[in-house]
């Protein structure tokens, strides 16, 4: 008898612990503790035992019953808690409550990136007017009227002597007029040229730079521009320095980088040359120094300039420059 009770008890306990639903649990209860349940049956059969065994067996059986009741109660709580957790859960895959996300224009982002690099190198940011005089935009930069180099920059005119600046170089002249060397500045801003197609917009953005001091040389120019290219693209970008012409610098140089699209194998973006023109630069022409009253025998310097759109197009893979000024929200949302 004792063994029977023990066996039923262990069996029932195992069942209770493994029960995974309330339904299962109540069936177990009926099976062991119900009116016709196994343990109930055993309890009842105690009366048929010899009288001297009855109290002891009764105690054992009641003990087992109590323990099972307790186990049922614990299991019940456990299963009820599980069930309630299940019904209280939410759909975590529903999208979150939207918080309006603002974005900066890609041109602003690239301008910032460019400026930050030069700020780290110790350059200051200077700005100037977008409507300029012919003097600051051309004449002071060694481009007198009727100079063929003016053809390189088709100009919007306001009057005979005022125009929309075609580059931010006038800022360099204004700065040199105002301050004596050393000068170490960059000049970001909007510039304007009469041109409109897939690779030109009549308004675009430039960052130009100028460094003037005693003993500034071409070697320094190469370091600053190499460092810049390595930071705005990556350290592995190779560069080449190619002779060119700007009226306000001599020697003048055009800086090409290995095509970031094809890595030099040749593609449409680089016109199958493997190289991309990215910067114009040069040593400041003595004629420019003379115009602003710097002594060209004492001071030397270099200047450089780049188009922000060009860098943005390469970095973001944009093929049509006009996209920047259509302000299509789907375009702007990408950056």
């Amino acid at each position, binding site marked *: 008898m004792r063994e029977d009770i023990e066996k039923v008890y262990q069996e029932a306990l195992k069942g209770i612990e493994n029960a995974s639903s309330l339904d299962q649990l109540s069936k177990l209860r009926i099976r062991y503790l119900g009116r016709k349940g196994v343990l109930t049956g055993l309890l009842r059969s105690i009366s048929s035992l010899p009288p001297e065994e009855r109290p002891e067996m009764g105690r054992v059986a009641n003990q087992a019953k109590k323990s099972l009741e307790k186990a049922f109660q614990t299991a019940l709580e456990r299963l009820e808690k599980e069930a309630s957790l299940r019904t209280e859960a939410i759909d975590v895959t529903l999208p979150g409550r939207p918080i*309006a996300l603002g974005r900066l224009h890609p041109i602003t982002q690239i301008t910032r990136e460019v400026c930050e690099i030069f700020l780290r190198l110790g350059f200051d940011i200077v700005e100037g007017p977008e409507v300029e005089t012919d003097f600051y935009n051309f004449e002071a930069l060694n481009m007198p009227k009727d100079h063929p180099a003016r053809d390189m920059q088709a100009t*919007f005119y306001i009057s005979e002597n005022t125009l929309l600046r075609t580059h931010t170089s006038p800022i360099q002249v204004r700065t040199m007029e105002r301050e004596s060397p050393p000068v170490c500045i960059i000049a970001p801003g909007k510039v304007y040229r009469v041109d409109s197609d897939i690779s030109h917009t009549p308004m675009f953005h430039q960052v130009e730079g100028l460094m003037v001091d005693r003993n500034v040389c071409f070697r320094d120019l190469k370091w600053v521009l190499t460092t810049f290219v390595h930071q705005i693209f990556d350290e592995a970008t190779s560069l080449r320095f190619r*002779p060119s012409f700007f009226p306000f610098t001599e020697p003048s140089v055009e800086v090409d980088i290995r095509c970031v699209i094809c890595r030099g194998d040749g593609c449409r973006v680089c016109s199958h040359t493997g190289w991309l023109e990215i910067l114009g630069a040069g040593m400041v022409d003595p004629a420019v120094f003379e115009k602003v009253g710097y002594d060209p025998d004492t001071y*030397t310097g270099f200047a450089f300039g780049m188009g922000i759109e060009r860098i943005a197009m390469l970095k973001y893979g944009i093929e049509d420059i006009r996209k920047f*000024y*259509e302000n299509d929200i789907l375009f702007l949302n990408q950056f």
Partner: protein
Amino acid sequence: MKVSLSWLEDYVSIELGVNRLADALTMAGLEVDSVKERYEYLDTVVVGRIVDIADHPNADRLSVCKVDVGGRMLSIVCGAPNICKNVLVPVALPGTRLPGGNTVRADIIRGELSEGMICSEEELGIGEDSRGILILSGSHRLGTKLSHALDLSDTVIEFDLTPNRPDCLSIIGVAREIAAIQKTRLKRPKVRLSEAKESIQGFTSVTIEDPVLCPRYAARILTDVHVTPSPFWLKDRLLSVGLRPINNLVDVTNFVLMETGQPLHAFDLDRLIENRIVVRRAQDGERFVTLDGVERILDSETLMICDGKRSVALAGIMGGLNSEIVAGTTRVLIESAYFNPSGIRKTAKRLGLSTEASYRFERGVDPEGVIFALNRAAQLMRQVGGGTVIHGLIDEYPRPVTKKIIYLDVKQTNRLLGTQLDRDEIADLLKAIELDVTVIDEERIRVVPPSFRVDLERPVDLIEEVARIWGYNRIPTTHPINLARGKRLNKRLRVRERLRELMVGCGFREVITYSFISADSCDQLSLSPEDSRRRLVHIRNPLTEDQRVMRTSLIPGLLYAVSRNIKQGNTDLRFFELGNTFFYTRSDQLPEEIEMICGIWTGNRYDKSWCYKDIQADFYDIKGVVENLCQGMNIPGVHFSSLTGNHFPYFRHGYAAEISCGSSRVGALGEISHDVLKNFALKDPVFAFDINLEILLDCIPDEKKAKRLSRFPGVNRDTSLILDKDIEAQAIISFIDGLHEELLEKLYIFDMYPLADDKKSLGFRITYRSFERSLTDEEVNRIHKRIVQKVVDHFHAELPRG
């Protein structure tokens, strides 16, 4: 500038492969724009066999041929006299562009289908025979490209030359650079002239009346020439660089122009009145018909070539119709001159006329190359046009261009480049490009540049040549010792970036619109006639009508951006822009540039989502943004007042506020008026703010200072008032502020709703706090009651019953 390899090889033997050559030229400063196969245009011309010939039913002199082009049988109408069965011929398939300018098309010719064209040598630009179709000898597979069958190949290199290198605007000039790169020899053409006995003095004379604009004018005369089409070799050379042949005499002038870079002109001597040349300025208002048939109006700045009576050519730019070579011309005067570059440029600019000649003169031709080109042209004209070269030449050279002598300092060179070249290295580099170099002492050399290098005038010009020949990429790259001296960023730059951050934080997308807008945008904004934003800056040469004036407001650009996006189906938009506006001041002064920041909001308050209803943004949304901006910039004393006056007519009346900081009026915000919306094809409400950054800048404190905070708890009291509808919330706030209750920490309005009888209910909460102690309820109740009573009395308000 285009050059063909085959032509270049007349002057230099090319040892590098085409790609290496193009690369080397680019690295020498002659940027190669493209490298193309010259006969690309023949890619659609294939070998075919004529298998059948039938008479054209509707035209006596035409036949209809069946031509096998390799697996395909074409029907082609042909009029050539030499067609016969079973010969191999070149067949231009539809789409072929012939050098003469025609494009071959599939067509019905007099009722018969013609699916291509059987061509002559001349039509294909590969020979001079134009009498009949080209009959190919040998055997070729049908359908083979003609260029393969005939082994036609030449490379055309196109340069994008910088304005300082006019010496490379010629085949010889480019050949010279190649010779320098390869360190090989340049072969200049030899000119030997057999002249007649008669001297040129008996035929003509040249008078230069303006030696400044025309420092040199030379001429030769040929008689008994015949004007004919040019021989094939001459046409071929011109075609290879993209020039159209005209006749033998004119072609020679163009050939020598391309070969030497010296523009020439050929006059019919018998059409020159008095057979002589006078170089002088035009009369003001004089009319002259140039070769292209256009009548041009001249001014007294224009240099003209004249005969004894009248103008016969626009000097250095284009000849005149009245003296050009014609079919019957027998006596020719060849002009070879040097004109003042800026004079030519002025005239070419003014007339809007740019030619191969003017392009070279305005950049500077070789003043010492004039005679060589003249003799070369005389020699070639005699060769292709027959006739006699009259003895001698006229060379009026009143102002010889002096040779420049430049002294170059070795130290200065190394200092500018950062190199360590010695004197002899520098001298050798310069000698390699035909510069005449003499050593003066250890540190100095004396350099005389050749006359064709008009760009070399100063020591720094030579330093550039040293760097160029030495190689920019061989110059070391080192960290400048002068770097790193940065100053603090100026306030405008710092403020601008902070404003951008705040706007992005408010969920706005930054846009950049063009600074130029259409001239009627002032009307579109309903600006009054005396509005300062009508002080427009006009662009003289705008690209389009809607880019005619500089903007005086950012609003039109933003409205246009909104309208554009709505057309694309995107209706929930929040944009902002930071940028300059431009105001006319005086004709002799630059415009005033004022930086503005504007924001615009249309569509829903929240992005579309399952959890938000579609609620349209309203006035208080855009106002919240402006409040955020002001708080984010820590601007004190910001207040908003109902918009009065006429300065912001584009806002809807009653739905707009002026923004002030202390006594500065920084801008306005509100709903855009319906009339203005209509002008931008907009229907749904649009809200905007328009802030003058120049004024705002002065309102922004330079520094932020932390305040002492109380460690005692605050106590809140809420009160609702019933007020006349017209009493503005700001009035209540200012009134309570004006009571200067020292324990009052904060006041805000938590509730507002309209009531009947032109009344409204306004609920406000005041927080009281002390720095010294915790406040008691009694104390706070007393103060609050006092404040409420004062408000009630002052505004005749009521407290809600019950």
